[in-house]
């Protein structure tokens, strides 16, 4: 459960998370250039567009999204599936559970 060693020190670049290619997203939200909490507001608004069990992705480049998207999934009992590193930012893949 515990999150261990997410950062070396604050100045250090984020460690690369385990990246695996997962199932493709049915809907992709473009939140590039948008500051928190906009990316997860968009995610919450649009997750209903995929069926239960389907994958929705959020593209974002605000570093806060790397913490906020998994934390949102935990709070809202959705599944955080995987994080893809993009040339600019990341694509966070979430499976709708209900």
């Amino acid at each position, binding site marked *: 459960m515990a999150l261990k060693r997410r950062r070396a020190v*604050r100045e250090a670049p984020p460690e690369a998370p385990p990246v695996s290619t997962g199932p493709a997203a049915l809907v992709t939200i473009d939140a590039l250039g948008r500051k928190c909490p906009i990316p997860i507001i968009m995610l919450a608004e649009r997750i209903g567009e995929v069926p239960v069990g389907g994958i929705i992705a959020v593209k974002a480049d605000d570093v806060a999204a790397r913490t906020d998207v998994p934390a949102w999934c935990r709070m809202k009992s959705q599944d955080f599936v995987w994080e893809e590193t993009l040339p600019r930012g990341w694509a966070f893949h979430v499976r709708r559970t209900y």
Partner: protein
Amino acid sequence: MAYFDAASTEPLHPAAREALLEALEGGWADPQRLYGPARRARMLLERARAQVAASLGARPDETSFTSSGTQAVHLGMLGTLHARRRAGRHLVVSAVEHSSVLHTAGQHERDGGKVTTVGVDRSGRVDPEEFAAALRPDTALACLQSANHEVGTLQPVTEVAEACRAARVPLLVDAAQSAGRVPIPGGWSLLTASAHKWGGPPGVGVLVVRKNTRWRSPLPEDDRESRRVPGYENVPGIAAAAAALEAYRGEMELDAPRLSALVELIRERVPRLIDDVEVIGDPVERLPHLVTFSCLYVEGEALLTELDRLGFEVSSGSSCTADTLRPSHVLEAMGVITHGNVRVSLSRGTRAADVDRFLAVLPGAVDRLRQTSGVTG
């Protein structure tokens, strides 16, 4: 207005004001000289040292005054790393230390030293076993705060101190958030604190270096403060800080349980009053006066501004602002929502009525901001 930001600074204690004015009159002379007014200043300084040392569980000759808590941390860390560089250049810190610790660690790393950062669990607490496992034969210093400044979680200082003693590694405890409020666990080698957190004046920090702890000034030495802190002592400020600590500690013995109950009320009510909110930090092993929660879909700064308009001075760990562009390293390390974050820290004598009024206006404030950003239930 209700002041809910004691974790940033506690308002000046009346005992501090009285002692400050007295010492400005009677303690203005150079405490190192040998004439009457100098001896009086020296007496004030040494009395203050004895008071503060006793409060922190230290000896007077182990206790030095600095110009801030941050300077105490810098001197404590750099002086130990310097004195023990033959033992090794490895430093262990927790991921949720104050920025003064992490910035010093960053500099140590840029200077060729090694740093291990011990992570925390969801409540913001380090695992003592994981901390112990980070200690190595070449570890020069380990740092662990007594309590977290953003979420209030108490750290397992006693267990970590035991592990450090077994590994013969000095432990620096940053006690800025807990000194004067809760008892300080023992077993440390260096301790730092800051007077304005307990109702003393700004500009006074404390550095305690235990006997038998190897330490050498990282700065050019001069003859003040047992050669630990260069520069002329702020005798009036120090006298006021000591008077504040004694008065504050006495009051906190009675007031802390009352503040803790008010924090408990906030912890319990906020999730029932507001949807999509998470109260963070350890619910039991925590500071008595501090509670932090995060509201989904709300920008933290907008919420603080709205609460200020409504008469509440609160702070936030989140910093989604143009000037930092980084979320709080504490919230990040805990893996909790970094936005919509509110830290309520109650000061001496905060009234229950203020907390009730806060709980009455908070849901409306969150609701208005969510509607502005287009979130509808």
